[in-house]
């Protein structure tokens, strides 16, 4: 198929999937212009016309970037993110901008200022979040791959809910230049794919050091994995803390089945302990809001975005703009972040959370030092929940990230692989690897993938 024909086919699929509310911006003229541009610069690149949906917190010059917030409604960036430039150079096609929890803060994509995203298999359920729009579009077959972002599980968790592959690279593997900052010590551009290979191809295209992001690191390129004949010679750790008694029985059955497959393929499996796991969510919900409170100070109605409070003085303009422009969850996080950084509370919360982060990271390092090549866990404690089920209690929503936030704090690569369904809803198996060992992680996933029958009922 030519790139122009691919663009036309994407446009038709985007129109048919409108009821998901997964897309915030796309247009036929923009897609045609994109196809023309890509056919000029990268038609024979490794992505060769692959349409890729882009989470709307990654800046693009051709389409608006809103972060699903009223405060950036209609905003168009004056530059493209590094990952957008690299995607096009590889022949990828920017298909659309996808819906998200406002500023990537949420676990259900219900916190978007532009309405919630529907789960492609059950419109009454959530697709997970915060990259729910990207996950839903890949699951619905609109695009084979999409970019999301992770601060604390925002790609792996929706990948598990929607039954697609979600890859979070190591912190520093992919440039953050042009990813709207939320928690800068945690943020990672991450990838969804219909298959491990699709996700790996996109990751390989966007990864690499970028002088415009000093936290990006030089490293050998990511390889698109070739499935191994078996898993002989590899040792897998099962962290006991990730299998609590109240784990959803369907999720447990899905992960048990995957672990049995790992053993059948010759892999060695043994229990390990990550003793500080229970501190991961509280640590995350101190550090991420603290960084967010600082990063979101830039939205003040002066240089870009919406301005409110006409006729008032400067401070009143700041407060009116931010009070009216930010939604409830973003306001809560800014307030929590401001509180834990304020005089008298810094040592009790922020300093403690920094110390906890060190211990959580050390737990993973110790487990890998015992000869474990990768860790296997459930990605989420339950399958996709019903819309509205967790909106009244922020802490209940935060606990949806209980198995994904520790990896983000430690900066490790991790992947969610579809591992079957329970009562029709997808289950995710999480594979966690040591820092910058994406190739090992992707190769394990590619080996398991053809055997896992992702749509089979697991109990």
């Amino acid at each position, binding site marked *: 198929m030519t790139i122009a024909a691919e663009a036309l086919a994407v446009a038709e699929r985007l129109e048919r999937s409108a009821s998901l509310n997964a897309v915030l911006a796309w247009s036929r003229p923009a897609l045609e212009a994109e196809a023309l541009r890509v056919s000029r610069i990268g038609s024979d690149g490794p992505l060769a016309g692959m349409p890729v949906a882009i989470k709307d917190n990654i800046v693009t*010059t051709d389409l608006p970037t809103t972060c699903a917030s009223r405060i950036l409604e209609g905003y*168009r*960036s*004056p*530059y493209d993110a590094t990952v957008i430039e690299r995607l096009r150079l590889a022949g990828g096609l920017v298909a659309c901008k996808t819906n998200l929890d406002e500023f990537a803060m949420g676990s259900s994509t219900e916190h978007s200022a532009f309405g919630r995203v529907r789960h492609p298999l059950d419109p009454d359920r959530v697709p997970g979040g915060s990259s729910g729009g990207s996950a839903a579009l890949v699951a619905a077959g609109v695009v084979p791959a999409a970019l999301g972002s992770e601060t604390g599980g925002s790609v792996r968790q929706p990948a598990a809910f929607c039954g697609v592959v979600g890859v979070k690279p190591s912190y*520093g593997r992919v440039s953050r230049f042009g990813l709207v900052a939320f928690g800068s010590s945690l943020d990672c551009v991450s990838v969804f794919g219909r298959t491990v290979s699709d996700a790996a191809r996109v990751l390989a295209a966007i990864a690499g050091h970028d*002088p415009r992001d*000093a*936290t*990006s*690191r*030089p490293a050998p390129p990511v390889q698109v994995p070739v499935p191994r004949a078996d898993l002989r010679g590899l040792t897998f750790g099962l962290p006991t803390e990730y299998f609590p008694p109240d784990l959803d029985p369907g999720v447990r059955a899905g992960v048990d089945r995957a672990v049995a497959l790992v053993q059948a393929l010759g892999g060695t499996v043994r229990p390990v302990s990550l003793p500080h796991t229970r*501190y991961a969510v*509280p*640590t995350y*919900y101190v550090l991420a809001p603290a960084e967010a*409170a600082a990063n979101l*100070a830039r939205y*003040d*109605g*002066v*240089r*870009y975005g919406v*301005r409110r409070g006409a*006729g*008032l*003085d*400067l*401070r*009143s*303009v*700041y*407060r009116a703009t*931010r*009070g*009216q422009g930010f939604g409830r969850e973003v*306001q*809560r996080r*800014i*307030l*929590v972040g*401001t*509180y*834990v950084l*304020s005089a008298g509370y810094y040592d*009790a*919360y922020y*300093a*403690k*959370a*920094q*110390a*906890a*982060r*060190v*211990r959580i990271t050390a737990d993973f390092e110790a487990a890998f030092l015992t000869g474990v090549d990768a860790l296997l866990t459930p990605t989420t404690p339950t399958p996709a929940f019903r819309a509205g089920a967790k909106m009244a*209690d*922020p*802490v209940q929503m*935060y606990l949806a990230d209980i198995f994904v936030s520790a990896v983000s704090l430690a900066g490790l690569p991790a992947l969610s692989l579809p591992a079957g369904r329970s009562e029709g809803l997808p289950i995710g198996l999480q594979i966690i690897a040591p820092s910058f060992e994406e190739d090992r992680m992707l190769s394990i996933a590619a080996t398991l993938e053809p055997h896992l029958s992702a749509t089979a009922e697991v109990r």
Partner: protein
Amino acid sequence: MTISPDDLVRIARLAELDIAEADLRRLAGELEGIVSYVGQLTSLASADPPAAGDPVGVVLREDRVDPIPLDRAPADFAPEFQDRFFLVPRLPAMDGG
């Protein structure tokens, strides 16, 4: 830890956020719930200094500012822009207030 509506007003002022009077009680309750949940960190013994980050592998660029080429000018995206300046309202102190 209790967080009163008055505490919330103080925090909101630090955060430069207008909070509607009608939302104060609800938000104070939510904040109290979150802060008491993350408060379980206080049971961790202190000691370990926070990680300083990994100096190995961090590649610093030359200490020079090169402007990023922009696709469109600030006048296109700023709320108010004139003669190369972003326009802002006056500070209250400048009116003697």
